């Protein structure tokens, strides 16, 4: 897609919308969000055996479908729309891209096929308890003991970190600072010295964990102390993909608000006939459509590996953060009292909007990131 999706991409989207419409109705979201794991194996298997979604963007050499990040963006937009509860963003987006960007060929051959098949799930352990998304803030250390690496430190806000079979971890050489000395590691989920604690989250549809590493054995991925570049790219891709997930949720909310306003009658008229309601809906359409445009541009930049991917990903993430939350706030308001009840589904998306607003950096942070790279940004006039 530059500005329009191809016929094949539109058909792909239609298939996904049907599939998630059937497999992830709000009742399923409510059931899974109440579990500690946050997802179930049967649904995950269907998603992978029927559609092969974990490999959409992975080259065929590793068992994937060989499409790109535009197609992955479509998957995320549809998942965000249906609020799919599955370790997809953690495993297929964050961890898989970290491996694709940072591991060597033999490691990719060894790790990716199982992730692509969905037989194993991985999580990306990056942020630490200070909640910073800047990789220079990583403090977890990797000590080389003999031929092996041992990790010590604490990671937090790890998406699906408590259920992953494999952890991809960013850590630094002892004594290094900033962006130097950073290396990428793979750690088995059942490794000794690992303590994984699920966090109580505001958004029950996105599970987070705190992971303590007490001298945990780890496999170095790629070259030592060279992770900063590939990891920054992984984060930019992730921000672009998250923006696509977010606009899917925002559009769903916008539509549900419109449906409700058309249905609800007060003062003898559908409330949608009141100008206050119409003007709010018009602005909601503006917010969502603009955020969609930005998310699609970022996905395209990621797919083409453009030099301005970091700026565009930050632009899209900042835009989606504002638009999703604003749309969620309007949607509750339009539902009135019922919108504040547990029974009404709006709060499920509201909570996802809130967690997505902050995950990978809030809009203020991304706007600053965008400004830092704007000088290199190609103006399209």
């Amino acid at each position, binding site marked *: 897609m530059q500005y329009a999706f191809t016929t094949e991409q539109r058909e792909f989207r239609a298939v996904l919308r049907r599939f998630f419409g059937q497999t992830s109705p709000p009742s399923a979201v409510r059931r899974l969000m109440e579990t500690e794991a946050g997802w179930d194996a049967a649904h995950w298997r269907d998603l992978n055996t029927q559609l092969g979604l974990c490999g959409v963007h992975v080259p065929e050499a590793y068992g994937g479908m060989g499409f790109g990040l535009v197609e992955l963006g479509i998957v995320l937009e549809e998942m965000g729309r249906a609020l799919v509860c599955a370790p997809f963003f953690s495993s297929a987006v964050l961890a898989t891209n970290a491996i694709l960007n940072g591991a060597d060929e033999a490691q990719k051959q060894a790790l990716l096929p199982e992730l692509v098949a969905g037989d194993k799930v991985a999580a990306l352990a990056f942020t630490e308890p200070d909640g910073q998304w800047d990789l220079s803030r990583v403090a977890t250390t990797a000590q080389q003991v003999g031929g092996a690496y041992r990790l010590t430190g604490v990671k937090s806000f790890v998406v699906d970190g408590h259920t992953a079979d494999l952890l991809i971890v960013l850590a630094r050489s002892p004594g290094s600072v900033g962006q130097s000395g950073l290396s990428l590691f793979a750690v088995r989920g059942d490794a000794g010295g690992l303590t994984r604690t699920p966090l109580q989250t505001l958004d029950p549809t996105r599970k987070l964990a705190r992971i303590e590493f007490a001298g945990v054995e780890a496999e170095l991925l790629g070259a030592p102390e060279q992770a900063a570049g590939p990891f920054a790219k992984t984060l930019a891709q992730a921000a672009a993909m998250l923006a696509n997930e977010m606009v899917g949720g925002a559009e769903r909310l916008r539509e549900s608000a419109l449906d409700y306003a058309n249905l609800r009658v007060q003062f003898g008229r559908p409330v949608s006939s009141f*100008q206050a309601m*119409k003007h709010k809906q018009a602005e909601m*359409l503006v917010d969502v459509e603009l955020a969609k445009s930005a998310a699609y*541009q970022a996905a395209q930049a990621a797919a083409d590996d453009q030099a301005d991917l970091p700026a565009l990903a930050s632009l899209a993430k900042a835009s989606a953060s504002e638009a999703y939350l604003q749309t969620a706030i309007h949607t509750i308001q339009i539902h009135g009292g019922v919108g504040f009840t547990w029974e009404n589904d709006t709060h499920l998306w509201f909570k996802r909007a809130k967690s997505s607003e902050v995950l990978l950096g809030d809009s203020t942070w991304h706007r600053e990131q965008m400004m830092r790279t704007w000088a290199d940004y190609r103006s399209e006039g």
Partner: protein
Amino acid sequence: MTTPTEATVRAEIRDWLAANWDPNLSLVEWRGRLVNSGWGAPGWPSDLYGRGLEPALAAVVDEEMRRAGAVGVARSGARNLAIQTLLAHGSDAQKRAFLPPTLTGQYSWCQLFSEPGSGSDLAGAATRADLKNGRWIVNGQKVWTTSAHHADWGLLLARTDWDVPKHAGLSFFLIDMRQPGVEVRPLRQMNGYASFNEVFLTDADVAPEHLIGELGAGWAVANTTLMHERSHGDPSAAKATDSGGRKGRAYDEEREEIAIATEPYGWYPQRAGRVDLVLERARETGKINDPVVRQEIAKLLILERSAKWTALRARAGLAAGEGLGPAGSLGKLVGSHVARAAARVHTLISGADAMLAGAEAPRDGIIAEVLLSVPAVSIAGGTDEIQRNIIAERILRMPKDPGIDTNRPFRDVPKNPAQATR
């Protein structure tokens, strides 16, 4: 006669230009040749100043005209609105009377639609036309009339029947602007420019043959005009045939014509916010290093970029046969958001200098002009409020407000105080 092909059309227009185009002719004389030969509007029917060519072949004529540097017929701005309205609704006699002198540029036009009492509610026009002794006598006031002081003729929307609902009582006329009953006064705007006029009509005279379309069908005719007004783009962007300064009387006269036509629009780029100046200004003032200002600049750039991409998505969707989609109707409203955000950011960047205007002010007063012109963008050409109604009703299919003005005689509809006394 054989069917024209690209080759025959190209050969024919080249021969004709070689024999007829002379930059030293007066503009009117040259355009007269274009009109009489049909080469000025080659896509029009051959019995109506054209040559009946399909669009692809008409484009070949345009291409050859440009190649020869030949000036075209007058078809921009209000002239185009008059031409399109006449083509769609004019009688044969009206087309023959008005199209040739319009195409040659002899007649210039203005549009007399908006009134002090009916802006967004255009169909609430209260200027009246009464038939007396076989002539239409017009009384009322129009406003926001571009170039009325240059115009020979006006496109007039006036009420001819007060006892039917508002849309049904309007008629459309061509009115001679050069008569004692028409008084044009410049309307000074808050940014100091006077790009528009007020037009006072006091017992102004309209010949019966200058009614366009049926009596009472003026609203449909006016909608044709409005449709073309919305689609013709930015009037400040009009360009001469040759901006390189070629010599010749026809070129000189065309440059003069364009200068008159674009003169009211010098501030239009400023009313859109001049986002293009933001980063340069932030660098030259050092505000680029202020984290608060950086946030606001980023918000503006995100908005402006996303707006452009959204417009491109709409266009691509249209080309792919998906229709314009919701994205296509958002542009006007989003443009207001961008302009307002830009004015805010320019103020942040300029600091105390934002209090200045004129030659001593930032960018020779251009920034001040931005600050004083942006309020127009959310009003002109359909207010933000009307745009939101359009988006809600046409795109989101939300129900219309229950109207109280369309189901009774216009005479009984509540009006503004000034109109009610009439």
